[in-house]
């Protein structure tokens, strides 16, 4: 898979780039002298016809020079070298407020030319007739951070390995190089009338190459052509026919298309007969992964190994999601504000043409070929009712109530047909049982008639499986609050929230299986005390058939959770320049759905902003969230505490300084059960297990964030900027794998920048900016740039010209 971004290049190596940038600057400078005399001051625009027009465009060139991990640079920054349309805006306003097609137009763009983020915004409207807005966004998502989904293979020695073989995986097995294009378009007709119409359309396309993995014997690396598309259509009508009341109806239709397919194109090795094979990416000789004796002394891969000769999987997922919504807002009743909404969604999901084809080997089961097909379908049924009321009892006292009912049900089923063929090695052709034909299966091209060689773990040769599952949740929440403004400068509120959740699921499975010899009495037809189990029948030719005995039980489960929260808040304006807000929530629940869902939690938030003087602004915030689910066998405690402060100094329009600091402290502890061959000695076993060890998994993450930004205009034409952002993270976790690096838990991310704007003439500004991106892990190791594989340093210089009128 080719990567779009290129290695960094130095300025020294590209004289043509210098010439290009210089030429742009010279052209612009020359053009200015003629234009200047016709320019109005920037910001006023020019009047042309019936419109006032303001426009700006900034065009430039970016030079990049980076060292270190290209993968991490692409994941974090992904700014490459080349010309750029850095910014472009257009604003038009009708002078007489009766423009022919529009009265207002606003258009902005940035990032075009090669940046990973490109955005265009458009708003255009004509008084009383229409408002139209459009938003287009394009996003390049390069992901190659190697820690996640990485088998972290040890540096083990593989006997007879070919020259240059290295089991260490340096890239992410779930690498992404996709493009997301999102467009949102909304039109409102007759916006000021008693009946107005709204039309909308959104499109979201996410596509591109990526990697994925599949576990079957080994973990094969799959090439995944990612493509998902959503088209959403919206139609709405607002009725303001009743006094002080608006009623709206919306019809929304979302259509999702998932066309992502996977193939295995990672056959980097070959069998002794020259057949290419993918042995997967989990390579650990000591643990016999992918198998013992992976490489033969005579060359080639051991045919008894787990491996993929070929693999493909595809299916078309189509999900249609129509939603009807009725909403209203009303201030008809004196001193009472009402709003409400009710919506219903009845969505359908279908998978068409699902097919999975594998040719390879799963050594545990002797699987040699596998075909899976079958339809999948499901529904998403959701109903929501929201209601809110505010009663202004007096000018100082208010009562508020918000009620929410939300329910969803996701029933879905998959009816699969599976045909499996077996053989004892990658070089042995799969056997086709004879005389009974393998009905309904496509026989493998290299299959030979014979008795399949099964292991005791082999699944059925042919089976149909029908899975029908349901997940649903009903949620009812009511929040009641009292608000009182003691004075114009002090107010408080008190509230109580009750939430009831009912989560339920069910699972229904029905299976029909055909077991051929050899070892036909296996799986669901394994003899129990010498007898066939219920559902199994002998077919007379040595094969056995199994059908799930009737009646088929449905597994169900339900979790009920009741949450109670007390809320309190206070706001204060000691002076017009000073604002203080404090609010807190104390809550408890009588149950939890997951081990990490809290049964008790408290949240405290304090914010303050203070304009000390006309040129000094201070602000600060404290956010503390404490959670507990410290029942036995879980012992979960969590907290997230953020503290921050900042200041802005702007003594005049020629000098400003902004600086700030934030500190965050994340902590979690919970009992976990696991198996690890490097588990510390002496730790207890999990209750109910003689194999699983129990240990308190403690996670800490402390992050410091500091920044400053200085703007200084020593002379009218010259504006300089200097700034710095740094995020420093330290932490610890329970590392169970000796190869796992601390990675992001011990990292620094530096981003200083600086530059200047020079006003050549009215409306024409030249800019030169430098930015540095430096990411370092394991700062305790020196020299860190050589040791930590994910470090990078990038210097970016952007030269541009901005013209505005």
């Amino acid at each position, binding site marked *: 898979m080719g990567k779009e971004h290129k290695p960094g290049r130095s300025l020294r190596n590209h004289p043509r780039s210098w010439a290009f940038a210089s030429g742009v600057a010279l052209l612009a400078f020359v053009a200015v002298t003629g234009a200047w005399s016709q320019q109005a001051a920037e910001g006023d625009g020019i009047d042309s016809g019936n419109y006032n027009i303001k426009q700006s465009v900034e065009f430039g060139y970016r030079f990049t020079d980076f060292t270190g991990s290209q993968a991490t640079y692409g994941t974090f920054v992904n700014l490459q070298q080349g010309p750029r349309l850095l910014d472009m805006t257009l604003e038009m306003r009708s002078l007489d407020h009766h423009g022919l097609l529009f009265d207002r137009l606003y258009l902005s763009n940035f990032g075009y030319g090669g940046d990973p983020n490109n955005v265009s915004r458009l708003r255009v409207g004509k008084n009383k007739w229409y408002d139209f807005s459009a938003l287009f966004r394009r996003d390049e998502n390069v992901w190659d951070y190697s820690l996640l989904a990485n088998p972290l293979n040890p540096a083990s020695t593989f006997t007879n390995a070919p020259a240059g073989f290295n089991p260490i995986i340096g890239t992410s097995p779930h690498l992404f190089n996709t493009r997301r294009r999102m467009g949102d378009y909304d039109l409102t007709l007759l916006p000021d009338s008693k009946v107005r119409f709204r039309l909308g359309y959104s499109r979201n396309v996410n596509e591109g190459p990526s990697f994925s993995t599949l576990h079957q014997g080994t973990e094969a690396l799959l090439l995944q052509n990612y493509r998902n598309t959503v088209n959403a259509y919206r139609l709405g009508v607002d009725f303001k026919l009743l006094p002080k009341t608006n009623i709206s109806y919306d019809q929304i239709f979302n259509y999702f298309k998932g066309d992502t397919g996977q193939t295995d194109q990672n056959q980097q090795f070959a069998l002794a007969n020259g057949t290419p094979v993918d042995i997967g990416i989990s390579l650990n000789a000591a643990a016999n992964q992918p198998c013992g004796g992976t490489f033969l002394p005579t060359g080639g891969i051991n045919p008894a190994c787990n491996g993929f000769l070929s693999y493909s999987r595809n299916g078309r997922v189509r999900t249609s999601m129509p939603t009807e919504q009725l909403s209203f807002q009303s201030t008809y009743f004196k001193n009472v504000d009402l709003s409400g909404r009710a919506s219903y969604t009845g969505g359908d999901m279908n998978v068409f043409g699902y097919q999975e084809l594998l040719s390879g080997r799963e050594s545990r089961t002797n699987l040699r070929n596998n075909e899976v097909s079958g339809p999948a379908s499901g529904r*998403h049924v959701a109903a929501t009712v929201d209601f809110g009321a505010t009663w202004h009892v007096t000018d100082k006292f208010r009562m508020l109530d918000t009620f929410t009912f939300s329910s969803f049900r996701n029933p879905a089923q998959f009816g699969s047909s599976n045909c499996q063929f077996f053989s004892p090695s990658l070089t042995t052709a799969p056997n086709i049982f004879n005389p009974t034909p393998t009905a309904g299966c496509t026989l493998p091209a290299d299959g030979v008639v014979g008795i399949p060689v099964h292991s005791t773990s082999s699944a059925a040769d042919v089976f149909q499986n029908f899975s029908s599952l349901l997940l649903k949740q009903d949620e009812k929440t009511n929040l009641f609050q009292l608000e009182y403004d003691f004075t114009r400068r002090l107010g408080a509120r008190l509230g109580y929230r009750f939430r009831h959740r009912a989560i339920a699921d069910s699972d229904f499975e029905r299976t029909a299986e055909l077991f051929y010899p050899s070892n036909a009495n296996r799986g669901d037809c394994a003899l129990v005390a010498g007898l066939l189990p219920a559902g199994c029948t002998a077919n007379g030719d040595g094969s056995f058939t199994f059908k799930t005995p009737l009646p088929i039980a449905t597994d169900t489960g339900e979790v009920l959770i009741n949450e109670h929260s007390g809320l309190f808040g206070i706001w204060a304006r000691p002076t017009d320049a000073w604002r203080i807000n404090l609010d807190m929530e104390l809550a408890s629940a009588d149950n939890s759905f997951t081990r990490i869902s809290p049964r008790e939690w408290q949240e405290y938030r304090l914010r303050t902003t203070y304009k000390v003087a006309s040129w000094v602004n201070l602000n600060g915030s404290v956010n503390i969230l404490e959670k507990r689910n410290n029942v036995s066998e879980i012992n979960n405690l969590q907290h997230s505490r953020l503290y921050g402060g900042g200041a802005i100094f702007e003594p005049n329009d020629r000098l400003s300084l902004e600086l700030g600091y934030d500190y965050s402290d994340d902590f979690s502890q919970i009992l976990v059960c696991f198996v690890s061959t490097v588990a510390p000695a002496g730790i207890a076993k999990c209750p109910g297990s003689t194999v699983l060890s129990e240990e308190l998994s403690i996670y800490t993450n402390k992050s410091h964030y500091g920044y400053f930004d200085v703007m200084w205009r020593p002379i009218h034409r010259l504006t300089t900027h200097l700034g710095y952002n740094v995020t420093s993270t330290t932490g610890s976790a329970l590392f169970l794998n000796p190869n796992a690096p601390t990675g992001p838990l011990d990292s620094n991310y530096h981003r200083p920048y600086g530059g200047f704007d020079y006003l050549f003439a009215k409306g024409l500004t030249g800019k030169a900016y430098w930015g540095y991106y430096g990411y370092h892990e394991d700062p305790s190791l020196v020299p860190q740039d050589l040791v930590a594989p994910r470090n990078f340093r990038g210097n970016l210089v952007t030269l541009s010209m901005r013209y505005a009128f």
Partner: protein
Amino acid sequence: MRRSKTPKRLALSLILTWAAVFLAAPVAAGAADKPKQTPEAPSTRYQRVTDPSLYVGAETCKTCHEDIFNNYEKTPHFVTTLENKRGPEWQGCEACHGPGKEHVESGGDKTKIFTFKGASAEASSARCLDCHSYGEEHSNFARSAHLQNNVGCIDCHSPHHAKESEHLMKEKQPQLCYGCHLEAKQQFNRPFHHRVNEGMVQCTDCHNPHGGFQTRQLRATASSDAVCFKCHSEKAGPFVHEHPPVKTEGCVSCHTPHGSANPRLLKRSQVNLMCLECHSLTIDAGAPATPTFHNQAQKYQACTLCHVAIHGSNFDPFFFK
């Protein structure tokens, strides 16, 4: 299972609450009614004065407030001066500031007209909401966290001196939001983050600053799913094999959506640490425990290497595909 009585109690309490509101509101409103509102008595409910003789028109305001008028003329609010179907209380400067005759006749006495500066957030916002509350975007502002914390419309918007012409904002996002929400600035500057600072995503894409029915003023998709699925649509499902917490607890049970030092915005630095916190042997726990052959010292520490379709799968109960 024995049915809980809680839903019935909840329903009863709601009915009683709403009944109290609807039955008592007219009575209390009658008691709270004031004489015809004068400019000197601002209220948290905007009662427009309908006597046309008290209005002077926007051109009169311009004679003293020319700079403000010139700015105002460039904004969408100026269209109110073209309003000819309703009375002067809906037109121009006086549509927000109230009748100006007394203010003009007194030579500019600020106490004779409503000034937003110094008014409470409730009172000033009530004037905006009298026109702008109709529509899902603003209909819940009265119950929003912002207004409850005395942050009103003009704390973010400036009808006269907007720096950003789009929505008449005092500052563009996210700098406007960072002015109070400092912690968000730190989070979006972490290595892995939603691209808010890059301009790709705005705070208002996920949050409705004017309030809503969800906690933290989060938006939702049309099908009542988490707002995350608007962009991350392939995670929405429905799936045959759901990973239930994705739908019941939400994406934030595993991810920190603003920013994280951890890849994929996860709450933990290593995938297995995240998974083991739920998938550990616990009596009565819903999540299945990790099998005994999942040696965490080997490849099994990378859970998603095998359990790839972790947000839900149509084809495999173990999320292998």
